[in-house]
């Protein structure tokens, strides 16, 4: 009897403590998932990926306006996260950290693309920039996408982070490396421009 209770107690205690310490993966916050991923739990990464990748993809899509480039950047971002997981500080918010890495990757990629040589067309001239204005589509949701594309980059980023990615103003400010007031100002100015672009929709019955 004594031997039985002695052998079963540590296992029972360990099971209770484990279930108390680590909630199920589905119930865990992104920060807890990141902690468990850092501790080497592969499933935690998959849950974390499923939770943050749509937001991250949406953000990168609107930065690059190109699905292939966005997916490339998504891979680069996650490979950086994987390499840097040991330096993730416990208690730091995960989503702004990941978005900031994605943004930095985008800026690095754009900078290196700018110094890349441009291919000449067969007649030896440089390809011309296409500056054609896209007309607004009939559907409001599509028109919103086009109007978002037309916004200056800093306004668009502020709006995408707060309205589509769902970050708070403070979190968006930390991703953009700007003050909260600056982010509010960008969102407001972007909003004014968006309204101007979308005016025709409010006029139609």
């Amino acid at each position, binding site marked *: 009897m004594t031997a039985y209770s002695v052998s079963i107690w540590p296992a029972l205690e360990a099971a209770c403590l484990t279930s108390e310490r680590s909630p199920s993966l589905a119930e865990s916050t992104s920060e807890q998932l990141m902690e468990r991923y850092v501790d080497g739990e592969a499933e935690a990464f*998959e849950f974390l990926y499923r939770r943050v990748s749509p937001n991250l993809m*949406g953000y990168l899509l609107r930065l690059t306006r190109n699905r292939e480039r*966005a997916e490339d950047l998504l891979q680069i971002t996650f490979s950086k996260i994987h390499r840097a997981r040991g330096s*993730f*500080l416990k208690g730091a918010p995960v989503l702004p950290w990941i978005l900031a890495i994605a943004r930095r990757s985008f800026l690095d990629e754009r900078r290196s693309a700018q110094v890349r040589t441009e291919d000449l067309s067969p007649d030896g001239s440089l390809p011309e920039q296409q500056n054609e204005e896209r007309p607004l589509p009939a559907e409001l949701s599509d028109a*919103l996408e086009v109007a978002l594309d037309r916004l200056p980059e800093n306004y668009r980023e502020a709006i995408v982070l707060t309205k*589509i990615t769902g970050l708070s103003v403070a979190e968006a400010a930390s991703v953009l490396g700007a003050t909260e007031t600056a982010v509010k100002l960008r969102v407001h100015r972007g909003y004014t421009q*968006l309204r101007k672009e979308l005016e025709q929709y409010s006029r139609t019955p």
Partner: protein
Amino acid sequence: MSMPKPDPLADLPWPKPEAPGEAVSAKICGACTKNLCPKRGLSALSRLCLCLAVSGLVASFGYWFGVRHQRSELGLRVGLYGAVAWGLVQAAVLYIGFAPRRGVLGSRSVRVGLAVLFPVLFLGYLSYAAWSYVPFEQFSHGARASHAFFCGLIALGFGAIVGGCVLLAWRGTDPITPRLSGTLAGFVGGVGGALAVGIGCPSHEAWHLWTAHGLIVLALGLMGFVAGRRLLSP
């Protein structure tokens, strides 16, 4: 009681977040979970303590140097008290500048304010600690100038050790403002180096302190600004 402000953009049909393609997701999950092993870095507190320990070690070397060269007891004591007090300030700067923060302390403007205030306060302290003053023409020639150059070189070396340690201890932790954090690391290193040299340095002349001890802080802050992007960004 005030009503919450209505969101002027709430009525727009905002696009939903989009999932990446299945192939890309499988590739990423495969790469990130293959042979996954625990990779836990130091905690923020351990990193902070490590930086302070290196700064303390450098300061104690300065003290040893001062005792060995029979500096005045008053000068040694003032330098040591200054080092202890500035050690606390360094700890606060490291905590606010590098540890994960939420709320007011986490805001960028607080850290920018810190990056401006910290070196200004230190230069103010050096001016306060100066016991004598000679005109710049006298200071810039002869033995005084060469002593300042020698002192500045040692302070730069000590500061680079402390600043480098801060950069390495917090390596890859700041994807958001790595340059700002790098500048803070440089300032912390510069102050550490200047204090260590200050303990053993016999000169308390104002120009000497401003140039040989103070300018080093600004120089290391600039170096930290440059190195921060490479070292602190993941």
